């Protein structure tokens, strides 16, 4: 990263903050509608201990939810790819379940799982494991059929074919899914507050 790379976004950010500050001052926007950046910075300095503590809790919720989504999502994706029966049994339900807004069931989750860390982790997990499954399934399926024929003619079993061919081929898709999932798990953890 050079100055050429990070100067445009940095300058844009500075300009936005300046415009914000000026707009709040010139238009006399009350603080309870939109505080000026200077006021926010002051509050952040004053309350840093409280903010840091809560940021840490949110980070924990996000990371735990995300880790659960990876740990559950990738094996489910593998099961869907390797077993037509499992695919037919759970894939439609999985896609259908996504039409239920997770935010709407958040109060229920709190009712079931109590207050504290767990329900927030659960929402972060529920909201983020779907893109991981979908992208991993797409990735594992993107291997050319000829490559799988070759693997069999080389005498390789399913395990070795997965490690040497299928999984590495799927990695770009898996990472794309993780990228979407990690942002969603942030949303999930925060909304539940």
């Amino acid at each position, binding site marked *: 990263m050079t100055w050429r790379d990070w100067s445009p976004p940095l300058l844009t950010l500075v300009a936005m903050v300046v415009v914000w500050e000026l707009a709040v001052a010139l238009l006399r926007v009350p603080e309870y509608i939109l505080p000026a950046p200077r006021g926010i910075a002051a509050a952040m300095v004053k309350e840093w201990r409280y903010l840091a503590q809560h940021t840490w809790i949110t980070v924990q919720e996000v990371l735990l939810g995300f880790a659960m989504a990876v740990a559950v999502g990738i094996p489910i994706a593998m099961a869907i790819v390797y077993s037509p029966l499992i695919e037919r049994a759970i894939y439609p339900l999985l896609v259908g379940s996504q039409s239920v807004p997770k935010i709407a069931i958040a109060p229920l989750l709190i009712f079931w799982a109590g207050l504290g860390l767990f329900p927030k982790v659960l929402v972060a997990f529920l909201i983020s494991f779907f893109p991981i499954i979908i992208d991993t399934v797409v990735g594992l399926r993107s291997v*050319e059929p*000829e*490559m799988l*024929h*070759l*693997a*069999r*003619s*080389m*005498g*390789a079993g399913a395990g*070795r*074919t997965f490690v*040497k*061919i299928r999984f*590495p*081929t799927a990695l770009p898709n898996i990472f794309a899914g993780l990228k979407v999932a990690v942002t969603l798990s942030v949303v999930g953890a925060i909304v539940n507050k």
Partner: protein
Amino acid sequence: MLNGPKFVEVSDLVRVFPTPEGPVRALDGLSFDVRRGEFLSVVGPSGCGKSTLAMLIAGLLRPTSGVIPVDGRAVDRPQTDLGIVFQNAVLLAWRTALDNVLLQLEMRGLDPRSYRDRAWELLRSVGLEGFERRLPHELSGGMRQRVAICRALIHDPPLLLMDEPFGALDALTRDQMTLDIQGICARGGKTVLFITHSITEAVFLSDRVIVMTPRPGRIDSVVEVELPRPRRLAVRELPAFAGYVRGIRDRFMAQGVLRDIEEAPAP
């Protein structure tokens, strides 16, 4: 080559594919032998079941009926004592040319290190010296196909199945690859089943050419090519060569696969 022992014996082979519109007969009662060390081509129109035939011999598909003993043993599972080359090189994008060749051994659970020298040598023999460490996207289509050929040869299999291996290459590269394949197969004493659309390619490379009918695939005729080896590219201008090509082309005309123009003066 034609009087060597039988290596692949195809007898009364039928393969039917179920489709939503009903069963489709891809191969309908195919019988032929491939002799050890023979170069046998199968030429036919698209959809005549040529690729299905290769898949059946490789044990990657089950026949609906009929048997295929290879080297005396009926094929009932994926065969491993062969090399396969497809129309696409299907290389792994994150592996160098050398490592793509060595994949063959890793997948077999063998130690790729003990095959390194042989892999270098193979790559050099197909003109890829200096490209061993390149990734597939840095290679031309012809180079990638050469890597795929080396991968099919690294374990020194007695049988080579090639399913339209030059189908995606430009005409000049095809000519060079045809010559290279001739050299490789003559040196290694390989038995080769070569599947192609190109009559010229089939005649140039083969000891025998099997002409197929359109779906359902049956054997139309078998042509023995008696041209001395090694064959230079110029052999294609010889009257004898033209005679073989015309003979096969006439079969496709008789089938209606090819239709010549009618109102032109005969040459």
